[in-house]
C-alpha cells in the first residue's frame, strides 16, 4: 500500500490521568497514533494497558472527572475533537465514528427488542430533541429505519432478519448478539469503526467467524477501523498496521508484515511468544504485571519485566523514535546515542 496516504484520525501525545482518593493514576502517557483512510490498524496489548481508555477518548466517552486530559489532541478529518461540546460529539458518534463494544452480554439493553435498538439508532443518531418530531415524520423515519435494519442484517448474512427484529437480547446467542452490536455500529456506515475486542467473551470458533465477517464488511463498505485485541495472532489476520501498547504508551509501531517478520521491542517479542504454538503448547509469555499507574516507574515502564533491561532504563524513559529502516520503537536498545555513552 502507499506510504503516506491521507489521515482520517490522528492522536498526538495524548495524556489521560484518573484522579481518585488514592492519588492520580497516569494511565495514558503520551499516545500517538494515526489511521489513514481505508486502513485497518490494530491496537495490541495486555488487559489494563489503556486500550479502551484510548479509543473511548476518541468518542468522548471517558468521564471527566475522574479523567483529566492533560496533554495532546485528537483530530478527525482535520477537526479537533477534545474541545467539542456534548452536542457536537453526538453528531460524530455513530455516523463519523462508531464503536463496537467488547461484551455482547452487557452491551445491549435487556428491555428493548433488537428492532427498537436498530431503529432508534437509525432515527435519532445526531438528533437533539425527539419530542417535537411530528407523528407522520416519525412513522416515515421508522419505516425507513426498519428497512435499513433489515438491509444491514441481510448484509451480515443473519438468517430471518425480520424475526430477529422482534427478539429481545436474552433470546439470542452470544454470537448473534455480537453481530447485532456490529450492525448497530454500522447502520449509518461510519467512516471510522472502533472495535474494542469484539467477541473476546465468545467461543474461539464463533469469534473467528465474526472477525472474518467484520473484515469482509469493513472492506466492502470502505470503512477504516481501529481493532483492539490482546492477541497478536488476531491482529495479524485483520490489520494493515499494528500499534503495540504497554502501560499507557505505544512501544512499537509497524506494518503487520514487517512486525511479524521481525519485532524489535522486548515486550512485542514477549507477546509474540505467548501466542499458542501450532503444536498446542502454550507460549512462554512474560512474567510480572503492569506497573501501578499511581506510581509509574521513573524510567521505562517495562523495566521490571524486561529481559534485556540495562541500568539506565530505570532512570530515563525511552522515546518513540523512527529507526533507519522506517520502523518505530520506544526502547533504549535502539537508541544509538545512549548505547554509545555506556558502550
Amino acid at each position: 500500500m502507499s506510504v503516506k496516504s491521507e489521515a482520517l484520525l490522528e492522536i498526538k501525545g495524548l495524556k489521560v490521568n484518573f484522579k481518585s482518593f488514592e492519588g492520580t493514576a497516569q494511565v495514558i502517557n503520551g499516545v500517538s497514533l494515526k489511521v489513514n483512510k481505508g486502513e485497518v490498524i490494530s491496537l495490541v496489548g495486555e488487559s489494563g494497558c489503556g486500550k479502551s481508555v484510548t479509543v473511548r477518548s476518541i468518542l468522548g466517552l471517558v468521564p471527566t472527572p475522574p479523567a483529566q486530559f492533560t496533554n495532546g489532541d485528537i483530530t478527525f478529518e482535520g477537526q479537533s475533537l477534545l474541545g467539542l461540546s456534548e452536542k457536537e460529539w453526538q453528531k460524530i458518534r455513530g455516523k463519523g465514528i462508531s464503536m463496537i463494544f467488547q461484551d455482547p452480554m452487557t452491551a445491549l439493553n435487556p428491555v428493548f427488542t433488537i428492532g427498537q435498538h436498530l431503529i432508534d439508532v437509525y432515527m435519532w443518531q445526531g438528533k437533539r430533541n425527539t419530542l417535537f418530531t411530528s407523528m407522520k415524520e416519525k412513522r416515515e423515519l421508522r419505516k425507513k429505519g426498519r428497512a435499513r435494519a433489515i438491509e444491514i442484517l441481510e448484509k451480515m448474512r443473519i438468517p430471518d432478519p425480520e424475526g430477529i427484529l422482534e427478539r429481545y437480547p436474552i433470546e439470542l446467542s452470544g454470537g448473534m448478539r455480537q453481530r447485532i452490536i456490529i450492525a448497530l455500529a454500522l447502520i449509518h456506515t461510519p467512516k471510522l469503526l472502533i472495535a474494542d475486542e469484539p467477541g473476546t467473551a465468545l467461543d474461539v470458533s464463533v469469534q473467528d467467524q465474526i472477525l472474518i465477517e467484520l473484515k469482509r464488511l469493513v472492506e466492502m463498505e470502505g470503512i477504516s477501523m481501529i481493532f483492539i485485541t490482546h492477541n497478536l495472532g488476531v491482529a495479524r489476520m485483520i490489520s494493515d498496521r499494528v500499534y503495540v501498547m504497554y502501560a499507557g504508551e505505544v512501544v512499537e509501531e509497524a506494518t503487520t508484515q514487517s512486525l511479524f517478520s521481525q519485532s524489535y521491542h522486548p515486550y512485542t517479542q514477549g507477546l509474540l511468544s505467548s501466542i499458542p504454538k501450532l503444536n498446542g503448547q502454550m507460549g512462554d509469555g512474560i512474567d510480572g504485571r503492569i506497573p501501578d499507574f499511581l506510581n509509574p516507574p521513573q524510567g521505562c515502564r517495562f523495566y521490571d519485566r524486561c529481559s534485556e533491561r540495562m541500568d539506565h532504563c530505570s532512570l530515563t524513559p525511552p522515546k518513540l523514535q523512527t529507526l533507519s529502516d522506517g520502523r518505530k520503537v520506544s526502547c533504549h536498545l535502539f537508541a544509538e546515542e545512549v548505547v554509545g555513552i555506556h558502550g
Partner: protein
Amino acid sequence: MKEFIIKRTLHIIPVLLGLSILIFALSRIMPGDSIRLKLGPEATQQQIEAMEEEMGLNDPLPVQYWNYMKGAFQGDMGMSLQSNRNVAIDIFETFPATFELIIIAMAISIAIGVPLGVISAVRKDKWEDHSTRIVALSGIALPKFWVAIMLQIVFAYWFSLLPVVGRGEIAPTTITGLRLLDSLITLNFDAFITSVKHIILPSIALSIATTAQIMRLTRSNMLNQLNKDYILAARSYGLPKGMIVYKYMLKNAFASTLTIIGLSFGALLGNAFLVEAVFGWPGMAQYGVQGVIYKDYNAIVGVTLVIGVAFAVANLIVDVLYGILDPRIKYDS
C-alpha cells in the same frame, strides 16, 4: 406471555389459602371474650352459652374454618358484633372508599416519585438532588398522622381551600363505590368535583411516605444504570441524551421500582387507617380497627382476608407488568 401470566396467577392460590387459614386460626386464638363484650356485664351463663352455640364457637377449629370459608364463598362472612350485620355487607360498603383512597395515593406517589427520582439522579450532587433528597427523607421520617393534621390545618383551616372530613355530601349513584369513577360514569360533574376536593388531602397525606420511597428507589436505580455498558453504547451511537435518560435508562429503572410499588400497596393499606381516622374517611381500615377494639372476630378475619387478597392481587399485577417491561423475568421463572 400468556403462559407467564397464567403461571403467576396460579402462584397466588396457595398464598391465599395459607393466608385464610393463618388469619382464621389467629383470630380464634386471640385473647378476650367477644361474647361477654357483646352481651354486656349482665349476661347470664345460659345466654352466653346459647350465643356461643349459635355462632358455632364450640365446633372444632377445622370445622369452624370450613364453615367460614363455605359461607365466605356464598357472601356470608358471619355477623359483625359492631354492626349486627353480615361482615360481607360492611366490607362491601367500606372497601371502595379505602380502595379509592389507596389508588389515588399510589397514582400520586408514582406521578411525583418517579420524575423526582430521575431528576435527582440526573442532577446528582447538585442542588436539585440535595433538595429532593431532604424532602424525601422528611417524607419517610415524619409521622403520617402529624402530616395529615398539618395538611388539614394549612389547607382547610387557614386557607379554607379544601374540606376537612368525609367523602362529600354530593354522592353519585353507586355503581362501583369508587366515587370518582361513578361520578364520571354517570356524568355527575358536581359529584366529581366534590369527590376530588374531598380526596385530595387524605390521599396526599397517605402518599407521602410512598412517594419518598419510590423517589429514592428510582434515584438509585437510575444511578445504577449510569455504569451499564449498554448506556455507554447508546451514547456511542449518537443518541440524544434525553432519549437515553427517559427511554433507555428509565425503562430499566422503573422495572426495578415496580417491585417496591407492589410492596408499598401493603404499606398503604396499613397506613390507611390513620389517615381514615384523621379525615373521617368511611373506609374499611377504620372498620377493621374498630373490629380489633371490640374483638369482633368476624370483622377482623373478613377485613384481613380482603386486605390479603388485595395485596396478593396487587403484587400479581405488578409481577405481570414487570414481566412485560423486562423480558428477562419470564425466562427466569
